[in-house]
C-alpha cells in the first residue's frame, strides 16, 4: 500500500452519526490507515440531520492532494456536501467529488481502490459502478 497522504481521501456523510461511524469502521477494517478518512453525521444541534460546517471539517481532515471522494446517504447530505465543496474554494473544489453510490458499499470499495494509489477519477468510477444509473 502506498503512503497514506498520497492516496485519495474518503469522507462519509450520513444523517446519523452512528451510520457514518459504522461505515467508517468498516472502511478502516478494510484498508487500515492507508487512506485519509473522516466521517460526520447529525445536525448542528446533535440530532439526526446534516451539518455543513462538520462536512467542511471532515473534508479538511481527509484532505489529500490526490483529492477526496464523499459518500452520502439522503438528499440533505448531498446538497450540504455540494455547498461545502463550493465554500472550500475553487483550487480544491475541482478535486472533491460527491459519489453517486451507496454509502457503505461505495465507501468501502472506494477506499480499497484508493489504498492502491488509484486516481480520484478511478476511485469515483469504481464506486459509481455500484449504482444502476
Amino acid at each position, binding site marked *: 500500500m502506498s503512503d497514506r497522504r498520497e492516496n485519495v481521501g474518503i469522507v462519509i456523510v450520513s444523517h446519523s452519526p452512528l451510520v457514518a461511524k459504522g461505515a467508517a469502521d468498516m472502511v478502516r477494517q478494510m484498508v487500515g490507515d492507508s487512506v485519509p478518512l473522516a466521517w460526520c453525521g447529525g*445536525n*448542528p*444541534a446533535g*440530532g439526526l*440531520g446534516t451539518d455543513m460546517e462538520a462536512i467542511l471539517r471532515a473534508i479538511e481532515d481527509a484532505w489529500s492532494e490526490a483529492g477526496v471522494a464523499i459518500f452520502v446517504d*439522503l438528499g*440533505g447530505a448531498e*446538497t*450540504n456536501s455540494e*455547498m461545502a465543496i463550493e465554500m472550500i474554494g475553487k483550487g480544491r473544489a475541482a478535486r472533491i467529488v460527491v459519489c453517486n453510490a451507496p454509502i457503505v458499499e461505495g465507501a468501502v470499495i472506494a477506499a480499497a481502490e484508493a489504498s492502491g494509489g488509484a486516481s480520484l477519477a478511478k476511485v469515483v468510477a469504481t464506486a459509481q459502478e455500484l449504482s444502476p444509473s
Partner: protein
Amino acid sequence: MNLVHEPGLSFDTVALVCRVIEACRDAAVSQEAYLCDLDRAIGDGDHGTNMRRGLEALAAERQLLSAMPLSDAMIAAGTILVMNIGGAAGPLYGTLLLETGKGLSAGQIPFPQAFLQAVGAVAQRGRSSPGDKTLLDVLVPLSEALVKQTDMRCLAEEIQGFADMTIDMKAVRGRASFLGERSIGHMDPGAASCALFATTVCHELMETARS
C-alpha cells in the same frame, strides 16, 4: 422602496433590517410545531426545528448584519443559514441569500433581478423545477412578481396561495418523493416556510412604508 431598490443603507434601513430579521425569527419560533407537522407527514419532521435554529442564529447577528451594505449582509446571512439550518433546506435558503447578495454586489442590477437569478441558483442546487412540490413553487412566482413590481399588498396576500398549490402536487425531489402518490394531499414544508418568511418580510416593508 429603499431596501429593495438601492444597496446603500441609511440609518432607517438599519432598523428595518433588524426588524425584518426579528420578525422572521418570531415567525419561525411561533410556527415551529406547524412546520414540523407538515414535514412529519411527508418527511422526517424536523423542518420547523431546523428553521427555528437557523433564524435564531441569524437574529443573534442582526446588529452586525444591519450595519453592512445589503449585498454583504445577504451573503453573510446566507452563510449563517447554511451553517445553522442543517437539513436539506439549509443549502437552499443559504443559496438564495448568498446568490442574491452576490448579484447585488457584482453589478448594478436591482434587487428583483438579483433575487430572480438567485432563485435560478436554488433550482440548480436542488436540481428541481416548479411543480416538483418544493420551495421553488413559492420562490418562482414570488420572484416573477417582484420583477413585475407587483404591489406589495397584493403580493403579500397572494404568497400563501403559492404554497397551497403544492398540496395537490406529487413530490419528485427529497425524502417526500419516496412516498410517491402518497405525498399528494400535503403541503410541502419548504414551500410553507418560504411563504411564511416572504409574507413576514412583505408585512414589515409595508409597516415601514406606512410609518
